[in-house]
C-alpha cells in the first residue's frame, strides 16, 4: 500500500524531532480524532509524540514560525472537546513526558512533567503519608497537564479546592515560543499570580512542561455516611442543615433515583429501598476532630427525616459507598447507548429548584436525565441519555443541555464547574460574560498566543461548529477503567 506524499509542512516537521516521533497513518490519526466527548471528531495533520521538554519547545517554536495550529494532549479524557484536534494542525501528545522529577517531603511538593497521570502522584508519595488532593474520577488515566489546562476538580472541592489551589508553580513554553517559569516551590508568591492565570487556560496559552504540585498529609480518619430520603427536597434540606451547622465535610454528594437503580444493577450497590435520593457525607481529619464532628453530623441527619442512615463501619464499607457513587455515571451509561454529561453550577440553596426544572424539561421533552452531583458546591452533573441512531435524538439531548446551562447562568451560577468550556460550551460563554469581557479575555489570550495557534476554536464562540456525530462511551469507560463523575 502506498501512502500519499507527506505535505511540505509535515516534511519540515520531520526535521524538528527525532525519527519515530510522528504518527500520520490513517489508523493512528483515527485514534486521536476525539476526546471523551466523542460527539465531536476532527482528523489532524499528524500526531507528534515528544519525549523531552526540549522537543516540545522545538515543536512549539516550529508551529509558531510556520503558523501551524497545535493541540496539546494528555489522555484525551476532556468531556468538553478540549483536546479535539484542529483540522490541518498537529496534536502534541505528552504521555511520554511522564517523569516525576522531584519529590521534596519537607516542603511537601512534587515537581512533575505534564504526562504524569493524576493518581501516579499520590502513588509516589503515599508511603510517606502524603497525597495529591484533586481527585477527578478520571484520575487513573487523566494527566496533570490536562488537569492544569482544565483546572480539574473532583469530589473534594468545597474543602480542598480545584487543581489551581494545588499548583504552586510551573514551567511552560508559550505559543510564542517563550519559555517561562511562574511561581515556584513556595506556597507564597510576590507579584501578580501568573501561575493562577495559567491554570484553567484550556490549552490556549501554550504547553505546560513541568508543574510544581503541593502535597497534603493524608487525612488520618474518615467518617462516611449514606442517608436515603423519600424525596429529593429532604436530601437537599439535609445538605442545607449540614452547611448551616458550621461543619466542613470533605465531600457532600447526592444521587437521584435513576442513578441509584443503575449503580445497583452495575456494581451491586445496595441502597435503602423506597428512596428518591441518597446523600453521601464524608468527614475527615484528625481522629479527635472527626469524633467530635461526627456527633453533630449524626444528630443533624437523624433530624432530617431520612428513610435510613447507614454509616460506614470500616474502610471496606466506605469504599463500597464510594464505588457506588463513582460508578454511577458509567452505570447510567449502560441504560443508554449514548449520553452527554453537563457540569453547570448553581448556588447551593437553589439546587432543589434546579433539579425540579431539569426533571420537568426531561419529562416534557421525552429525554431521560439522571442526576448525580456535588451537592456541597452546587456542581450539577446531569447525565442526558439518548440513542444516537434515532434521528434527532442528539439534537434533543443538546437542546436539554442548553436549557440547563442557561438555567445555571440565570440562577447566578456557571456553565462549567470543572469540565471546562472547550468546543462544546463555547457558544454559551456569552451567556456568562459581556462582549467587552470576552474581548478582554481574547486580548489576554493573544498576549500568550498572538497568532492564535494554540488550541484554536476552543472556549471562544466562533462561526461554524465542528461536525456533531454520534458515538458511544469513551473506550476506557466501556472497559470499566474510568467512570464519569
Amino acid at each position, binding site marked *: 500500500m502506498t501512502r500519499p506524499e507527506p505535505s511540505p509542512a509535515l516534511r519540515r516537521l520531520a526535521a524538528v524531532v527525532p525519527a519515530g516521533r510522528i504518527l500520520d497513518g490513517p489508523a493512528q490519526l483515527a485514534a486521536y480524532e476525539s476526546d471523551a466527548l466523542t460527539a465531536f471528531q476532527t482528523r489532524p495533520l499528524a500526531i507528534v509524540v515528544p519525549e523531552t521538554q526540549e522537543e516540545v519547545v522545538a515543536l512549539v517554536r516550529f508551529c509558531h514560525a510556520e503558523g501551524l495550529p497545535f493541540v496539546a494532549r494528555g489522555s484525551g479524557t476532556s468531556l468538553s472537546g478540549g483536546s479535539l484536534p484542529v483540522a490541518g494542525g498537529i496534536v502534541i501528545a505528552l504521555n511520554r513526558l511522564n517523569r516525576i522529577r522531584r519529590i521534596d517531603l519537607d516542603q511537601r511538593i512534587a515537581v512533575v512533567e505534564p504526562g504524569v497521570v493524576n493518581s501516579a502522584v499520590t502513588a509516589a508519595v503515599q508511603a510517606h503519608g502524603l497525597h495529591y488532593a484533586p481527585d477527578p474520577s478520571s484520575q487513573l488515566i487523566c494527566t496533570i497537564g490536562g488537569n492544569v489546562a482544565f483546572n480539574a476538580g473532583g469530589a473534594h472541592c468545597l474543602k480542598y479546592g480545584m487543581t489551581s489551589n494545588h499548583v504552586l508553580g510551573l514551567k511552560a513554553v508559550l505559543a510564542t515560543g*517563550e519559555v517561562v517559569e511562574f511561581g515556584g516551590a513556595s506556597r507564597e508568591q510576590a507579584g501578580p499570580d501568573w501561575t493562577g492565570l495559567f*491554570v484553567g487556560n484550556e490549552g490556549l496559552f501554550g504547553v505546560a512542561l513541568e508543574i510544581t504540585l503541593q502535597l497534603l498529609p493524608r487525612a488520618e480518619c474518615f467518617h462516611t455516611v449514606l442517608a436515603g430520603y423519600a424525596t429529593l427536597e429532604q436530601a437537599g434540606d439535609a445538605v442545607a442543615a449540614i452547611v448551616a451547622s458550621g461543619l466542613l465535610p470533605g465531600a457532600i454528594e447526592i444521587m437521584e433515583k435513576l442513578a441509584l437503580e443503575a449503580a445497583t444493577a452495575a456494581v451491586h450497590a445496595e441502597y435503602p429501598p423506597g428512596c428518591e435520593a441518597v446523600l453521601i457525607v464524608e468527614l475527615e481529619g484528625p481522629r479527635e476532630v472527626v469524633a467530635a464532628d461526627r456527633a453533630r453530623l449524626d444528630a443533624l441527619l437523624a433530624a432530617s427525616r431520612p428513610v435510613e442512615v447507614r454509616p460506614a463501619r470500616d474502610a471496606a464499607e466506605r469504599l463500597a459507598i464510594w464505588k457506588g457513587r463513582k460508578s454511577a455515571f458509567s452505570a447510567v451509561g449502560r441504560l443508554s447507548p449514548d449520553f452527554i454529561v453537563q457540569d453547570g453550577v448553581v448556588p447551593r440553596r437553589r439546587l432543589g429548584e434546579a433539579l425540579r426544572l431539569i426533571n420537568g424539561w426531561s419529562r416534557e421533552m421525552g429525554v431521560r436525565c439522571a442526576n448525580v452531583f456535588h451537592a456541597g458546591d452546587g456542581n450539577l452533573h446531569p447525565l442526558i441519555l439518548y440513542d444516537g441512531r434515532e434521528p434527532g435524538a442528539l439534537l434533543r439531548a443538546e437542546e436539554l443541555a442548553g436549557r440547563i446551562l442557561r438555567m445555571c447562568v440565570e440562577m447566578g451560577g456557571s456553565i462549567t464547574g470543572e469540565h471546562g468550556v472547550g468546543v462544546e460550551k463555547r457558544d454559551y460563554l456569552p451567556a456568562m460574560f459581556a462582549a467587552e469581557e470576552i474581548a478582554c479575555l481574547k486580548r489576554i489570550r493573544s498576549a500568550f498566543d498572538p497568532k492564535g495557534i494554540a488550541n484554536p476554536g476552543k472556549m471562544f464562540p466562533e462561526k461554524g461548529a465542528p461536525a456533531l456525530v454520534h458515538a458511544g462511551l469513551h473506550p476506557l469507560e466501556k472497559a470499566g477503567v474510568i467512570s464519569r463523575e
Partner: protein
Amino acid sequence: MSAVLQPASVEELAAAVRSAPRVIATGAGSKPRLSMVCADAVRVSTSRLSGITEYEPSEFTFTALAGTPVREIRAALGERGQYLPFDPVLADAGSTLAGAVAAGINGPGRWRYGGLRDFILGVRLVDGEGRLLRFGGKVVKNAAGFDVPKLLVGSAGRLGVIAEMTFKVFPRPLAWRSLRLPAVDEIAKGRLLAELGRGRWELDAVESVVGDPVVFVRLGAPEAAIDALAKEIMDRFGGEILGEKEAAAWWFDAAEFRWTHPAGAWAKFPLTPSDGPAFATWVATHPGARARIGAAGNVGYVSWPVMEAAAECPWRGVLLRGNGPLWPGPRRLTAVAAAVKAALDPVGRFPGLED
C-alpha cells in the same frame, strides 16, 4: 502630591480612571510602597466605595466593594460563625479588601487552607481604558474563562483597579489553642517546621521570629478535640500552651505587623523552609533589621530601621513600605507579562509592572 479622587460607585470609579492619563488606586495606605509612584499619577481612593453588597452564609460566599475595611468583613462573617481562613492582615490599621488583594499578603491562618488566591472567586475591575469588567464567578466552583481574579492577587494596581470582589468563606473553628515550641537554632527550626507540616494535626498557623529559639503554633478545632491535639504536639516537641491573652496579643502583633519598624522599610519574600537558615544569616547582616517567618517557612517578612531597603536581596520579594524597587531581588522578566499588561492597560494608565 496631586489630586485624590473619591468615587462613590463602581461607575464613578470607572469614570475616575478615564479622567486622567496616569492613575493609581489607593486604599487605606497600609502598604504605602505599592502606591508610591510617579508624582503626576492621579490617586483614586476607594474610601467611599465601601460595603458588603451580598452575603449568603449558606453559600459560603460574600461580595464586597473594593474599599470595604477588612475589619468590617471580619465582623460580619463572625456574626454568622464564618471567616476568611487566610486571616487578612492589617485589619486594625484599616486595610481594605482590595488593598489586601492587590498587595497579595496573607495572615498566619493562610497555612491551613491557603491564601487569598485560594479564596477569591470573582472580581469586577476597571481596566486601563476605563471599562468595568467582571471575571470569575459568584459561586464556589467555576471554570469558565481565564482566572483573572487570581492574576490580580499581588498585582499592586498595575493591571487594573479592583471595584468589587467575591470570596469563598469557611465556618470558623469553634475553639483555638496556641503553643510555643522550642527550636534551638534556625536549622532545628527548619526541621520542626517541616515535621509540623507533615503531621496529622491540621495546624492553623505556624510562625516564628527570626533569631528567637521558638516556634508559635495555632490550632483551630472543636472544643472536644483540641486539647488532645495540643497535648500530643507538646509531648512530641516540648513547649507550652499560651494563655488566652498572651496568645491573642501574639497573633495580633503578627497579623498587624506591629513588630515592624513603623518608620522603616518592610518587605515580603516567598521562601521554603530550607531557606530559613540562609534567610536568618542574611537578615543578621543588616543592623537593626527584624524578621519573621510565616506559613511554616513559606514566607519571610523583613523590616529595616531605615526607609532604605536592602539594595541586594537574594530572594525575589515585594517591598510594602520604604524606598527601593517594588520587587526587590533577582528578576525574572517575561515578555508575556508585558504583553498581558498591554492587553489590560494598553495606554499605560496604571504604573508599569516594574515601577
